[in-house]
């Protein structure tokens, strides 16, 4: 068996309008740029995108935003793309802002089959409004719900054809979490290797989480995003 697909288009076949999609990356670092690029070419609308940021202005998820394909964004730092504010002012997008640790933890909880969890982060702030507060052993917490999605688009460094993944430096970020929390998980990597080539002690994402793998064609370099 191989999970390798021949193109980003083939890998994205299952993605449809109205889907909730987890997208890896911290800004453009560790973002699945090839899959995002393909998504901008696909005829879909009304997407809910869960990602730390919505790319940068005109880059990465920023293109999808400007195309009007995003109905709602769930993330922690939209400030990195000034277009998000404009869209929001114009009433063209819903936004849900979460502390970065809560965003990460909620996605992990989704992947781990949990319903929600009590966190100290945000207690007593504007971001706790409407959320249940409760004391446990004398400490106040708020309830945050798990996040699950239809699709995850993630970026790893290497995959074997079974779908085991390893990551590269700070491009790891949200990707391993997102690999656990969607019905369909699509990965782009720098290199696809044979089973046995990755050390079992070093695999970060075991293959049972992964559905499809492609080689990255859009890569972040010192000079910016380039096609390879």
């Amino acid at each position, binding site marked *: 068996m191989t999970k390798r697909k021949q193109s980003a288009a083939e890998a994205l076949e299952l993605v449809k309008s109205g889907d909730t999609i987890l997208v890896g990356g911290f800004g453009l670092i560790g973002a699945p740029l090839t899959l995002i690029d393909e998504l901008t070419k696909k005829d879909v609308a009304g997407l809910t995108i869960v990602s730390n940021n919505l790319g940068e202005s005109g880059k990465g998820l920023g293109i999808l935003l400007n195309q009007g394909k995003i109905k709602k964004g769930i993330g922690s730092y939209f400030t990195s793309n000034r277009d998000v504010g404009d869209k929001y*002012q114009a009433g063209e997008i819903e936004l849900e802002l979460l502390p970065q*640790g809560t965003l990460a933890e909620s996605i*992990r909880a989704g992947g781990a089959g949990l319903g929600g969890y009590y966190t100290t*982060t945000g*207690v007593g702030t*504007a971001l706790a409004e409407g959320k249940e507060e409760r004391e446990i052993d004398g400490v106040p917490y708020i309830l945050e719900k798990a996040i699950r999605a239809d699709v995850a688009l993630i970026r790893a460094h290497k995959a074997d054809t079974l779908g085991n993944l390893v990551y590269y430096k700070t491009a790891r970020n949200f990707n*391993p979490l997102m690999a656990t929390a969607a019905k369909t998980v699509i990965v782009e990597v720098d290199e696809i290797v044979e089973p046995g080539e990755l050390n079992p002690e070093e695999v970060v994402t075991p293959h049972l989480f992964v559905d499809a793998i492609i080689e990255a064609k859009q890569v972040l370099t*010192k000079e910016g995003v380039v096609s390879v």
Partner: protein
Amino acid sequence: MTTMTKQEMQHMIAERVAKELKGPMSVNLGIGIPTLVAEYMEDDDIYLHTENGLLGVTDVEEEDIDPNLVNAGKLPVGEAVGAAYFNSSESFAMIRGGHVDAAILGALQVDERGVIANWAVPGKNIMGVGGAMDLLVGAKKVYVTMTHTSKDGSPKLLKECTYPITSTRSVDMIFTELAVFEVTEDKQLRLVELMPGATIEEVREKTEAAFIE
């Protein structure tokens, strides 16, 4: 003081905070003045944590820049000896779980109990929070760095924050170009030091919050 550039002021504050850091310890540096603190740390046993997934941040030479190795401000960094990478939930588990010894953060406002506002301005869209709230609840010590006043000269050390607060937790110390304050156990500001060239009169004049002299 008036002859100092903004950059000089920032460096002076960063240098002063660095003196508080005695290893072994792990420290998370925020964006802005906090990032400059790394230049002034004298202890080798200080390990820098960045919430996007690395313990063991160092600076990097221009020729060694790797676009996939950045800090929380998305600036290129290097990898220290003995470093470790991890994912975002592991990184924030470290922060929230109390495993990071100190966070150095910027602030827009600080109230007289040491509660800070540093993520949003009323009337503008609330578009980004990042890791600020997590660091506030989780870091063992929180040190705040900021200029003493806003661009228009109004105080940032206030009786009450008028901007949305980041956490109900009081920070531990506040560093400006004029003074160093600590927050006492009963949550009062106490002036511990005047910065070079500053006078107590100037600090009183430019501080709205009550403080113990």
